[in-house]
């Protein structure tokens, strides 16, 4: 019987020696006394980064955690024997478990977007094809464009980049737009600090994104596409580039794709580190070779986008859902999650939780389940809040922990789903300092086009800096709120939401602001200027 050993070689496991583990496994398996010769594969993120490096044996479905290079011989020797007990996961009830499914970290998870991540060799297209890869594309090409869009409508898929805009509306708009030349763009400029979902997808399963993009192109009638990928993501760029070349060689890209008469090709554009380029019109400007400054809307990109042609921009995770929807049917997808937010959401669950890592859960589970049941709760100290939606998202305090994870419920709480970064804070975090941190990030990244964002952020940052130094007056809070209100007048969604971190901290943690101003003290003991008072 042949066995596969899947070694997680995502950046985080690599930094803990995954490469050496893979090499040792290969050399250990060459020993002539070894009966079973396994195939060692370097795969993408298997999820529980806190317990990496992770190694999984297939088809036995045994996963080992915190593997060291010295463990290789024991793992190889165990292939026709009992599992290596010391490397198994131990659940909170004290029981050691072999499979990932039995590990409490994965109990509530459902892998749709991450269906292949951590299971296939991302650099081998046949691995993807063997997991039903490009089946969604075949299905799409066998039906009319309108029917593809209908499937997406039935699925209820909403954009995963943050706002939750219905994907069908964009596709329909672009399909109906007049013009022979149309474009599709994959937004891989994952700019929210604390988020690595899109990186993990591109690194671990690049073809799922590419297949989604080809289907999108067919649906709207585009013959050319771009993948705009974050400059910092070297591995993603290499993997997607290799995927494009392999897909072209197999006839999934190029002229007359799979004999359907449909032509499509795409290329990567390397982004250049500007947060604002995550906004779709700024991204379009950037692909055109300009500074990334958002355009006014309308006209929407679906009518007038890249080089003024009808264009859709979808993010990585959104596109990775598309092949699944086409292959399984929109109705099947819509069964997952809740009515207004179907499917799953991938999160990078990080910060002060016991089990930081990459998770994918059905929409509708609560924040409490995500943070405490999956994340294992807080490492040390007490839960204070969770930050969602990136720098222009917001903070959700303990009293809202039972909110379900869906686009509308999170928005109603004053935060937003965002792209999926979920950063958990404990009581050692000073909310005022954190709000200052976000403002300094946003002030630096503001493209400078609109006054309320450009100047407003600087003024707000100045106030926050004075508060953290104990130099502010209580009246400053009123000015802060006024400026926060005014920033909504900015052109783009990033500008209009820049004040979210300030608004939500003021809403939920006003007492901390007041403690800094009135008592000149920092309750969390973070702000240095107030430390010894």
């Amino acid at each position, binding site marked *: 019987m042949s066995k596969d050993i899947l070694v997680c070689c995502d*950046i*985080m496991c*690599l*930094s*803990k020696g995954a490469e050496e583990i893979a090499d040792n496994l290969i050399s250990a398996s060459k020993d002539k006394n070894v009966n079973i010769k396994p195939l060692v594969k370097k795969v993408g993120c298997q999820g529980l*980064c*806190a317990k990496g490096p992770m190694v999984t044996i297939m088809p036995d479905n045994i996963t080992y955690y915190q593997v060291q290079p010295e463990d290789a011989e024991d793992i190889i020797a165990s292939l026709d024997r009992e599992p290596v007990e010391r490397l198994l996961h131990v659940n909170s009830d004290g029981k050691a478990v072999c499979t990932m499914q039995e590990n409490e970290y994965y109990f509530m998870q459902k892998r749709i977007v991450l269906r292949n991540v951590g299971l296939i060799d991302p650099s081998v297209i046949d691995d993807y094809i063997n997991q039903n890869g490009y089946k969604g594309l075949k299905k799409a090409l066998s039906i009319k464009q309108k029917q593809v869009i209908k499937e997406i409508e039935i699925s209820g898929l909403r954009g995963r980049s943050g706002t939750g805009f219905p994907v069908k509306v964009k596709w329909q708009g672009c399909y109906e737009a007049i013009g022979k030349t149309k474009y599709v763009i994959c937004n891989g400029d*994952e*700019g*929210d*600090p*604390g*988020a*690595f979902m899109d*990186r993990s997808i591109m690194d671990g399963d690049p073809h799922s994104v590419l297949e989604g993009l080809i289907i999108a192109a067919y649906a709207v009638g585009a013959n050319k596409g771009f993948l705009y990928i*974050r*400059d*910092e*993501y*070297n591995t993603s760029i290499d993997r997607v580039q290799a995927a494009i070349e392999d897909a072209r060689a197999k006839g999934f890209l190029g002229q007359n794709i799979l004999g359907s008469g449909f032509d499509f090709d795409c290329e990567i*554009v*390397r*982004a*250049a*580190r*500007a*947060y604002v380029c995550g906004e779709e019109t700024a991204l379009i400007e*950037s*692909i*055109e*070779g*300009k*500074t*990334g400054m958002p355009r006014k809307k309308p006209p929407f990109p679906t009518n007038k986008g890249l080089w003024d042609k009808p264009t859709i921009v979808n993010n990585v995770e959104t596109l990775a859902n598309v092949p699944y929807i086409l292959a399984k049917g929109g109705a099947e997808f819509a069964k997952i999650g809740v009515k207004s937010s179907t499917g799953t959401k991938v999160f*990078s669950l*990080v*910060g*002060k939780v016991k089990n*930081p*890592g*990459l998770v994918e859960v059905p929409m509708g589970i609560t924040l409490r389940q995500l943070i405490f049941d999956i994340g294992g709760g807080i490492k040390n100290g007490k839960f204070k809040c969770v*930050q969602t939606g990136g*720098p222009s998202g917001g903070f959700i305090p303990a009293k809202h922990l039972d909110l379900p994870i869906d686009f509308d419920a999170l928005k109603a709480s004053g935060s937003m789903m965002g792209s999926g*970064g979920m*950063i958990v*804070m404990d009581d050692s*975090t000073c909310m005022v300092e*954190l709000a200052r*941190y*976000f403002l300094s*990030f946003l002030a630096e*990244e503001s*493209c400078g086009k609109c006054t309320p964002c450009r100047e407003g952020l600087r003024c707000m940052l100045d106030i926050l800096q004075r508060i953290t130094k104990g130099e502010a007056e209580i009246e400053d809070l009123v000015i802060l709120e006024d400026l926060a209100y005014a920033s909504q007048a900015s052109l783009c969604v990033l500008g209009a939401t820049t004040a979210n971190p300030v608004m939500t901290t003021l809403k939920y943690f006003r007492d901390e602001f007041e403690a800094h101003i009135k008592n000149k003290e920092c309750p969390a003991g973070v702000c240095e200027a107030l430390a010894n008072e």
Partner: protein
Amino acid sequence: MESNERTIEEILNNFHPEDKYALAILHDIQKEYGYISSHSLKAVAKYLDTPISKIFSLATFYDAYSIEKKGRFVIQICNGTTCHAEGSQDILNEIEEALGIKAGETTSDGLFSIEIVHCFGTCAMAPVVACDNTYFGNIKKEQGKEIVKKYKEKVEI
């Protein structure tokens, strides 16, 4: 060492002279020389038949480019939200002290630069420092200095 560098013309000739390649050209120049010199700016503007002010604005708008020469080793300290909450400021202070320069500066021997990065997307091992495509996670006190030492030794070899 200098003789191995590609000339600006060699870089430019890999691209069609179209505006959409401006970013890609600048990426290649940045990678080759460690910065975008005024000579490069002029050459790109001429090649793309566009005002130099436009190329200058690209080179200064995007953080991926620098108009000042970077060191041979760029030590990148992540200051994403998670790293920030996990104490990236202390690591930055430690590395600044070890190299005797501030973030954004380059040592006078041209060997080291310090750069603050918004997020590497490796937050599960925050705080993170990277250099030369190697990532160091879960950095504790004193480890910042060790990283500097490690690269200083590399220079000596």
